[in-house]
């Protein structure tokens, strides 16, 4: 997947600091069209910070973010306009709004009312459980349904890139399986490139083409998903024996 052709999204030499502490230290990652890339590592490794840096939610100390090889200033509305959607950690659905209203919020920028309705129907077709609960307040949904809603909301702009931060957090194993099945479907059917941060390595590597392993704000390994699994690097990083 990682060829010399034009990259879709890149971070080059990105550093992020929080009060003098390096959350990311000259990190470079890339994502090609139609690719699923995994970001792995222990707590505090800087995985989520990469997604936030792309979205302009973490200020860059050094480095650049490139979209089709061209640098852009990562501010949320610009990032969304480029076709990048972010599903943040903890789902963060708007609990006082209905499922349908949450999806409408996700479709910001779609001026045509008919097109907005069409998109809502399109994402609901992907998530039939949401279709049945379209008028239900999202605060009353189960954790799994809320996660599906969060992903569906991200798909409302028909993104080229979907950034997912811990999609399995707090979900039962059966639901996690379902969530990852949907992620694989989105990548296959919509050709959406996906970058995922996830602790559930087994589920993650089942859908990822490529992965980066991070430790203390630096990238310590980068390879195809299968090779990363067999290399033993993950065990070493997670047990602190690196």
């Amino acid at each position, binding site marked *: 997947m990682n060829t010399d052709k034009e990259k879709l999204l890149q971070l080059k030499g990105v550093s992020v600091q929080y009060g003098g502490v390096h959350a990311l230290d000259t990190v470079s990652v890339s994502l090609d069209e139609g690719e699923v890339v995994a970001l792995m590592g222990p707590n505090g490794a800087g995985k989520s910070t990469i997604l936030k840096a792309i*979205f302009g*939610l973490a200020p860059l100390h050094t480095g650049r973010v490139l979209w089709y090889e061209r640098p852009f200033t990562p501010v*949320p*509305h610009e*990032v*969304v*306009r480029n076709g990048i959607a*972010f599903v*943040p950690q903890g789902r*963060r659905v*708007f*609990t*006082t*709004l209905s499922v349908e*209203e949450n999806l*409408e*919020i*996700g479709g*910001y*920028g779609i001026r045509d009312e008919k097109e907005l309705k069409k998109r809502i129907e399109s994402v609901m077709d992907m998530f039939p459980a949401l279709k049945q609960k379209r008028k239900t307040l999202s605060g009353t949904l189960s954790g799994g349904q809320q996660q599906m809603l969060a992903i569906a*909301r991200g798909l409302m*702009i028909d993104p080229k890139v979907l950034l997912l931060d811990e999609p399995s957090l707090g979900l039962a194993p059966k639901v996690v399986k379902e969530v990852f099945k949907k992620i694989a479907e989105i990548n296959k059917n919509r050709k959406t490139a996906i970058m995922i941060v996830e602790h559930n390595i087994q589920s993650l590597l089942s859908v990822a083409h490529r992965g980066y392993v991070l430790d203390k704000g630096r990238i310590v390994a980068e390879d195809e998903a299968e090779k990363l699994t067999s290399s033993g690097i993950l065990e070493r990083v997670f047990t602190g024996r690196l």
Partner: protein
Amino acid sequence: MEYLLHLAILFSIYAILGLSLNLIVGYTGLLSVTHAAFYGIGAYATALLLIKTDIGFLMSGLIGIILAAIIAFLIGMVLSKFDGDYYALGSMGFCIIAFSVFLNWQDLTRGPLGLPGIPKPEIFGIEFSTSALFVILAAVILIAIYFACRCIANSSFGRVLKTIREDEQAIQVFGYSTLYFKLTVFVISAMMAAVAGSLFAAYITYIDPSTFTILESVFVLAIVILGGLANLRGSLLGALLLIMLPEILRFVGFPGEIAGQMRELTYGAMLIALMLWRPQGLIGEYKL
């Protein structure tokens, strides 16, 4: 009867203030105590123009509203960068500054002496000189403001306000500029407060800075919280209760020499009890 009409007019004025503040505090989740300032700007602008010019009540009120909008835009640019406690503190600072201007710009406002002799409003040849006529004017404006607030609350704009209240960072992820939404609702709310100020000045016919202190902002905030955050009918209920409650206590029969103090004490105790019993207000959808 005159007394009841007086209470109805006061209720209308405070209901307008409550409804408009609910857009900021209840729907957007921003704890603002600036309202007395915009109430005062509307009142002073209308009073000065009615006294010094002959442009009439409608035009004076309109200028007051525009002035409030401009000032709200400038102040809102600063306040919208904050949230939580910092927003409240910033808004308090502005309210104090506005009060100081009303008090100290003596050439314009006459300072603590206030502005007496404000003419009663005259619209399309009808002079609203009696309480019975004025109550109609106040009620019509209140109804218009209520429906305007309802339109805002039920629109997609209102939905975004609720999401800002719930999770401001999460809404930014979809490309929304929360600064724009916070600023817009702040300006709209300030304009509505200025309408209440215009009505107040034209009704009472005398204003001075003591009406527009931070305590007045707190009183309007109490209307919003007591009635119910993010519920427009709650603001009407809150205004009704807080205007009527002290009046009802007049008839409880406290001994004459301590009646005033007892009324204040009972009034305060009832508010505390209500907050303990229903912190989200009587018919609120959300609590601070």
